[in-house]
Structures are given as C-alpha cells and as structure tokens.
C-alpha cells in the first residue's frame, strides 16, 4: 500500500500547481494573482523534492519565493495607484489565446505519449548537493562564471533603467 502515497502526493501537488496557475493567468485581481503564484512556486518545489532534487527544491523556495515573488510584488505596488483598492486587470483576445494554448497543449501531450523515451535505471535517492557542487566547479565552471557576470550586468542594467534622468 505504500505505492499509493506518492501518487496521492503527486496529484495533490499537480492540482494545487495547475489551479493556482489558472488563478495567476485568469484571476481578476492583480495582488491575488501574485499570491497564487506563491502556491504555484511551492508546489513546483514539491515536484522537485519528489524527483529527488532536494537542493533544487531549496533553491526554488529561496530564489523564487524569497526573491522573484518579492520583486513582482514590488512591481505590483510601484506600478499601480495603491489607494484604488480594486487593482483589477483586464484580459483581451481570450478566445484566440485559449485556442492557441489548447492546441499547443494537445500537440505536446500527443508528442509526450508517442515518443519512446529511453529510460535509465532509477538511481538511489540521496543528497544531490555534493554532485551539483562538483559539476559546477569542474565541468560547468565556465557557465558558472558567465552566470555570475550576467547577474552583475542585470543588476547594473536594472539600476540604470529605473533611475530618473535628471542628473545626466
């Protein structure tokens, strides 16, 4: 009976993820969308944990929930007059957009079920942090350094873009 439990957890996470993602893309209220995104990020982290990626689940919570979601909430607060409590957002092109999205989803599902995936033997689950650290310092050290330069450039570029051009 222990084979049932992972399935239940999987579908609970999947339902939470897709339900909150639907609120994100279709909700009327902007702040509510931002908080629904929180639930989506949490359930994606749960998926990572179920796939044996413990380090990635932690990084997902720290970077997405702690960083990106806070940034998005700042964006919501700074680009709307907060004293109007409505903060409603409009949608347009709903029918063509839904058609395109459904077509893409159908094609993806057909491809997923018609492709013979080559399956490897499942490895023993364990801490993945040492392996990731070793790969980052040996094989992927150049992308690692490039990513740090990219972060610096994005930081400086964002600061340049939002500054008022009075003292130039």
């Amino acid at each position: 009976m222990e084979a049932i439990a992972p399935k239940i957890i999987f579908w609970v996470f999947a339902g939470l993820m897709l339900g909150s993602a639907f609120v994100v893309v279709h909700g009327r209220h902007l702040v509510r969308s931002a908080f629904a995104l929180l639930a989506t990020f949490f359930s994606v982290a749960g998926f990572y944990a179920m796939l044996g990626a413990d380090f990635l689940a932690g990084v997902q919570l720290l970077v997405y929930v702690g960083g990106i979601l806070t940034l998005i909430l700042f964006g919501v607060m700074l680009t709307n007059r907060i004293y109007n409590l409505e903060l409603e957002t409009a949608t347009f092109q709903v029918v063509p957009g839904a058609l395109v999205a459904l077509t893409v989803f159908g094609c993806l599902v057909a491809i997923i079920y018609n492709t013979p995936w080559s399956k490897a033997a499942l490895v023993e689950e364990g801490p993945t942090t040492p392996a990731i650290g070793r790969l980052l310092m040996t094989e992927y050290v150049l992308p690692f350094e490039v990513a740090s330069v990219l972060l610096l450039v994005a930081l400086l570029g964002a600061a340049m873009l939002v500054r008022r051009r009075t003292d130039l």
Partner: protein
Amino acid sequence: MISLESYLVVAAALFSLGLYGILTRKNAVNVLMSIELIFNSANINLIAFSRYVTGDTEGQVFALFVIVIAACEAAVALAIIMSLYRILKGVELTDASALKG
C-alpha cells in the same frame, strides 16, 4: 511509481497556462508572472529527464542556470516596466503602441 509521462503532461499544462496568460493579459506585470510559469514548467521537464532518462544530476545543474537567468530576467523586466509606467502612466500593454504600423 509515478511515470515520466505524468510529470511531462503536468509541465505541458503549466506551459500552456503560461502561454495563455502571455497572450491574453493586458497588464505587463501579469505577463511577467506568466513567463515565470513557463520557466518553471521547463525546469520540471529538465529535472524529470535528469531523473528518468539520464539518471544523473547534470539536468539539475541546467535547472540551476535556468533559475539564475529567471532572476536576471525578472529584475530587468521590472526595470523596463517601471520605465514604461513613467512614460505611459500605466502598464497596460495595449497602450504601448508607439511602434505599431
């Protein structure tokens, strides 16, 4: 045991929801949230493949780089949205039509 296909189908549904959001939302911040959904679905695919197809941790390193790039993208996109707000006094994408032919 949950099959690889279940993870891929859930990730495909998340991708389609993000695509729908990008196509139908007027608010630029909402479009940014939809892009984050697409990043997450790609990451689920990378980690599922690294567990079921290759069986090592290299896919997780790729997912880590995707998270780094998503952080950069969010910062720069919000800076652009702030500039847009300063010019247009709003972030409705249908108003940003200066380059429309």
